[in-house]
């Protein structure tokens, strides 16, 4: 439980992260004693699941690799099943600093989805050349769709509230860039409010970065296709009925208000 009475689950999608995972979980436990964690082991061939369990985290092990999107839908289903108020996605490789999680949580009052974004002041994460242009183009288009400035659309550091947990538990893309860009665009198109919070990201503690300047062109083409699909796709009615303005969302707001009053009285 957070100080203001919300239950928070941190979901860490992990694929062969046994080396750094216990440090990451230890840091979360130390800085955020009030949250629960779930490590989704996505068919790792190393000891990721054992390491996570030894560090005291809940673990969900997939039978084979589904990719980040597949792992995240499992995470959101777990959050829904256990009735969490907030779900936060954090990378298992230690690049996301858990000390920014309270900042994400603080902005959930004004938005349904809060993204921890690089490239806006905080930290000195740098990408250069064509890949940078591709990312800028992507963020310009996505910002227009979401009607708010989003400088880092491929960030996997994000927090969402209960209606969006329900949304993502039913629908979460598994394709390349789908888990970041497409999920963001779909939520925004359905009417959920998105905001970004500047964060600093750290260099990898273990392993090698996956970026290569040669692949920038392929990246741009694939990003374009993902964006095209995200824009032409029609979201099913039962998903749109979870968004702000619907009876389901109104019920959620009412419950939130009632709980706040109860907390104020008690």
């Amino acid at each position: 439980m957070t100080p203001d009475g919300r239950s928070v689950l941190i979901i860490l999608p992990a694929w062969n992260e046994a080396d750094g995972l216990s440090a990451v979980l230890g840091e979360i436990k130390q800085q955020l004693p009030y949250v629960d964690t779930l490590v989704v082991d996505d068919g790792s061939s190393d000891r990721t699941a054992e390491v996570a369990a030894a560090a005291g985290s809940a673990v969900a092990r997939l039978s084979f690799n589904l990719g980040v999107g597949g792992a995240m839908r499992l995470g959101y289903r777990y959050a829904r099943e256990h009735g969490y108020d907030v779900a936060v996605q954090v990378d298992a490789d230690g690049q996301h600093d858990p000390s920014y999680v309270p900042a994400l949580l603080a902005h959930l009052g004004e938005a349904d989805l809060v993204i921890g974004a690089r490239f806006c002041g905080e930290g000195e994460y740098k990408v250069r050349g064509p890949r940078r242009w591709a990312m800028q183009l992507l963020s310009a288009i996505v910002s227009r769709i979401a009607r708010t400035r989003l400088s880092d659309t491929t960030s996997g550091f994000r927090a969402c509230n209960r209606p969006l947990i329900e949304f993502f538990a039913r629908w979460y893309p598994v394709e390349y860039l789908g888990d970041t860009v497409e999920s963001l665009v779909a939520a925004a198109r359905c009417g959920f409010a998105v905001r970004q919070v500047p964060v600093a990201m750290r260099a990898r503690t273990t392993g090698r970065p996956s970026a290569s300047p040669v692949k920038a062109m392929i990246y741009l083409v694939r990003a374009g296709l993902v964006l095209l699909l995200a824009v032409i796709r029609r979201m099913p009615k039962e998903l749109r009925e979870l968004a702000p303005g619907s009876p389901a969302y109104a019920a959620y707001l009412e419950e939130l208000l009632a709980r706040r009053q109860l907390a104020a009285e008690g």
Partner: protein
Amino acid sequence: MQLSTLTSITGIVVLAYILELLRRQQLREKYAAIWLCIGLVVAPLGFFPSLLDSTARSVGVASGVSLVLFAGFVLVLLVSLHLSWEASRLEAKTRTLAEDVALIRSQLAESATPSGGGEVR
């Protein structure tokens, strides 16, 4: 009726059907990319079946239409090969899933009966 009428209508219908399947989220991205490319090549060829005549002659085929038939046949062959490959992967995955379910069942049964030990591996 002219040949180009038939082929152009077919081209447009195929492209529209692909787009509609994409819109309804019935096709995954990897298949979507293949079919969009195929659709975008097939649709203009439907309007101008003679478009490939000169290309055909330069590779030694008498007419563009025969070249389209040949290319279409090779394409269908490749697509069905790809589907067989995907089906093989899916079978391997369902097998893993069935084994996992059986393992979980046996674990549940062991932890339910007190004499069964109940230790986890």
